[in-house]
């Protein structure tokens, strides 16, 4: 049905081809996973399929790309819209309308269908994908997972034969990821052709027919489902791939973390009976008490809405608690004092880059600028060569390291990370994990919000699950991690 015939593509202005001589056949009803390191070319392949290449991202194409034996490259995206539907990575920037019903109807309205037909199609999408509870809501009121369900519904109403998903699980919690998997299962059973590009693919392990591994723009290997799921661990790691069975490969890293080095400092953060609520009805954070010391890395877990972001906002001093106290080394800390001690690395580094060069970025907000300290920090983070570059020119991982550098200059005692590995491939995830471990060894107290189970097992010394009624910090040993895995992966 879809055929890449010796297909190559070079983005305008780039020196080298991003895709080199891709030859691939995708049959009708097949479920294909495209995977590989960041930058390998999987997104470029998806863009070629939905017409964004070459009409939205100009460049030079070579070879052919056929859909039912007709060239896809000659059709603009507006013509391909009825044949190939795309669901993108970030649910926040996919919707065009401000309410859900109209977003579901958006594609149909563009196609020029009559009103009755639009209502028919939206009705079918609502029934088939279970979206009734989300009708007539403001899209801004939905969670990431819910937004994405609407995005899928909007594509479903167009009834394309091919569905493309570009890293759909990057912004979802485990519950939403499971829901995504069941939607994909329904689509597969209904006979649609599905192509997914993702770094995390454990949720697809029962659905995949073929896995295409891409390296440096070419197809390095193809696997059947069984071949891929049984891939030897060393080969998998060498290829930079995450595990298909994060629930089975739990290797608690606690011994590795606290084993050798004793942290240089010994700070203690104590929280007594913290309470917070946004309105009078539900208390979001109820009587939370914890004790954390230097060198610990605590994973803050829970479904979206459990209060993870709220807790971090309170601990970093952006929000004020309703009751309860926070002590640091026996001294009581108000919200403003907490802010001076803390640093938060947001999921999207773009919100935290304020200047025109990396050097300026690290010197920001500091009264006495220490050039040497800045240089040594940049060196530690592998950013010295980018010292005078504009932060906007860096990659996502590099931007993240710049914001971490700012925290080191600020000498923050307590560090918070919000989803530091969303969308990262295996190698980058390990790099972030190692960096966080090093920071904790140097004496920082670290809190991490994460849905990335593999990352949690590699990095955390303790876990705090806000889904529990009496949330306590549990040691990140094999038992507790296994219990967490059972919850996440629904065993």
């Amino acid at each position, binding site marked *: 049905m879809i055929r890449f015939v010796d297909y190559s593509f070079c983005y305008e202005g780039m020196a080298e081809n991003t895709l080199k001589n891709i030859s691939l056949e995708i049959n009708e009803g097949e479920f294909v996973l495209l995977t590989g390191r960041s930058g390998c070319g999987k997104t470029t392949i998806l863009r070629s399929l939905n*017409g*964004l290449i070459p*009409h*939205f991202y100009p460049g030079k194409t070579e070879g052919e790309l056929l859909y039912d034996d007709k060239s896809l490259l000659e059709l*603009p*995206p*507006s013509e*391909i*819209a009825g044949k190939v*539907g*795309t669901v*993108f990575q*970030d649910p*926040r*920037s*996919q*919707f*065009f*309308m*401000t*309410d859900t*019903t*109209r977003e579901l*109807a*958006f*594609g149909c*309205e*563009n*196609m*020029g*269908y*009559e*009103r009755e037909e*639009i*209502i028919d199609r*939206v*009705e079918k999408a*609502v*029934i088939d994908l279970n979206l*009734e509870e989300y*009708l*007539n809501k403001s899209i*801004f009121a939905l969670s990431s997972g819910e937004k994405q369900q609407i995005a899928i519904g909007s594509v479903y109403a167009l009834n394309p034969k091919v569905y493309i998903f570009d890293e759909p699980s990057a912004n979802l919690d485990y519950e939403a990821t499971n829901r995504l998997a069941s939607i994909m299962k329904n689509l597969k059973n209904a006979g649609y052709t599905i192509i997914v590009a993702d770094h995390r693919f454990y949720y697809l392990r029962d659905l995949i027919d073929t896995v295409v591994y891409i390296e440096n723009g070419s197809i390095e290997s193809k696997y059947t489902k069984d071949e891929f799921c049984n891939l030897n661990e060393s080969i998998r790691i060498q290829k930079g791939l995450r595990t298909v069975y994060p629930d089975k490969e739990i290797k608690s890293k606690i011994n590795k973390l606290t084993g050798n080095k004793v942290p240089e400092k010994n700070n203690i953060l104590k929280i007594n009976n913290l309470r917070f609520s946004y309105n009078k009805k539900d208390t979001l954070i109820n009587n939370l008490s914890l004790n954390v010391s230097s060198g610990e890395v605590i994973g803050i877990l829970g479904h979206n809405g459990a209060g993870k972001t709220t807790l971090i906002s309170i601990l*970093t001093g*952006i929000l004020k608690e309703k009751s309860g106290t926070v002590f640091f080394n026996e001294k009581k800390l108000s919200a403003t004092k907490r*802010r001076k001690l803390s640093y*938060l690395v*947001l999921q*999207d580094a*773009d*919100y*935290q*880059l*304020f*200047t025109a060069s990396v050097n300026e970025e690290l010197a*920001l*907000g500091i009264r006495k600028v220490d050039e040497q300290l800045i240089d040594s920090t940049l060196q530690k983070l592998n950013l010295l060569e980018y010292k005078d570059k504009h932060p*906007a020119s860096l990659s996502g991982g590099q931007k993240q390291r710049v914001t971490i550098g*700012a925290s080191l200059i*600020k000498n923050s005692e307590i560090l918070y990370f919000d989803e530091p590995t969303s969308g990262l491939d295996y190698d980058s995830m390990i790099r972030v994990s190692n960096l966080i471990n090093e920071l904790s060894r140097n004496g920082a107290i670290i809190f991490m919000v994460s849905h990335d189970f593999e990352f949690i097992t590699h990095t955390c010394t303790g876990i705090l699950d806000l889904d529990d009624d009496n949330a306590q910090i549990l040691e990140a040993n094999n038992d507790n991690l296994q219990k967490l895995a059972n919850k996440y992966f629904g065993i």
Partner: protein
Amino acid sequence: MNESIRKQITQVSFHGTARLDARLKLFMLVMLGIVSFFVNGDIPEIILMTSIAIFVCAGSAAKWGLSMLITYIIISYLNTYLSYVTIPVITLVMNIFGVTVLKIIPIVTLARWVLKSTYLDELTVSLERAKMPQAVTIPFVVMFRYIPTLLIEYKIIRNAMKIRGISDTFLKVIIHPFATIEYILIPLLMRCLKVSEELAASGSTRGIERYNKRHALLKVKFGLAEYIILVFVIMLVVFLFLLDNSSLGQINIWRWQ
């Protein structure tokens, strides 16, 4: 055919004046905005504000309309009070500030209501029927959809600034106003670029560039109600300008005795 779902799909969440054609609403916004800026008398201004408040209240936004009207009245009194207090430079600056705020309030009242009460697909179809080119309709719709997002992004950036310790206190903002603006604008712009690219890609793959005639989910019509209100608005604009130029336009009603 599921009747209950179909009913929900075609449900209308706004009523009254909110259901008027988007073209009319935009026309009103422009015309009444112009009036607000060029008319100076107290009586014409309060008539304008009250008319807008009534119009908005009749469009499922009673709380907004009333609260803005009350705000307007309070600020009018305060502004006049300033003229009794004479501190050389400050009085003049506050007076100019006050007058500008008073001219903006009616516009903001109407604009926010238009933003919230207009279904974006009806806006697109309306503009299309008015023969606007795609180069106008698409940016327009994106702007409508992006403004609420902008507020969310702004809040996140302000929090990020607080964490970083830049312009995190009121004092710092006052002392370094331009730096503060720069710190807010740079991340805002970066996010804007990213979101607009992703939005465009998402719209593109769902056919936004197609040239066929569009139908909205609910019927779009510039009918009798629209024509009547159009005539009324034009008459109101003419009336206010005439009033402003007459002797009634010179009366000062916000007096403190």
